[in-house]
């Protein structure tokens, strides 16, 4: 039977590893930002990064025992909505009255 503190340490390590995994996945998705081709693809990968970043932040904050992590995630979620809408509207300007 492992000591409780060991188990919690194992949990913290697991949460950190999960945060790293999610972040890696999202970083791979960022390759779409590089290649595009359409602005829509770029917004999509930004959206994926936003969600993944929030997930990684929550996992990280729980693993490191930072209680403010949830508040940061709340702000990120709210502002991700704001920025995505601004991007979507901005991208439409770019594609329609540009080029």
């Amino acid at each position: 039977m492992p000591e409780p503190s060991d188990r919690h340490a194992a949990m913290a390590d697991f949460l950190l590893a999960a945060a790293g995994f999610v972040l890696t996945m999202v970083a791979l998705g960022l390759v779409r930002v590089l290649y595009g081709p359409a602005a829509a693809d770029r917004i999509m990968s930004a959206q994926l990064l936003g969600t993944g970043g929030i997930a990684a932040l929550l996992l990280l904050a729980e693993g490191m025992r930072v209680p403010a992590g949830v508040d940061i995630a709340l702000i990120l979620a709210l502002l991700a909505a704001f920025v995505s809408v601004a991007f979507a509207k901005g991208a439409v300007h770019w594609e329609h009255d540009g080029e």
Partner: protein
Amino acid sequence: MSLALNLLTVLAVCAGAFFFLAGTAGLLRFPDPLSRLHALTKADNLGLGLVVLGLLFQVDGLLAGLKLISVWLLALLAGATVTQLIARAARPGGTPE
């Protein structure tokens, strides 16, 4: 008790991480924007949802739990709105509004 909760956390977080994997693979591999959008929404809704579910087993206090759930709800709402806007713009001849 705590062991069971931890086990649930590990399961849910792993499942969530899997959906992020799936979403990324779809975003990179699917041929056209609309199907890429389809892959993205899985990562958004289920990936983050399962991670939040997993972390819910670890929180102490009602407020922290409520905040976690509202993070997910906000992400859902934002995701649904933006995917609509993108899909309309991506459709041939589509306009955003």
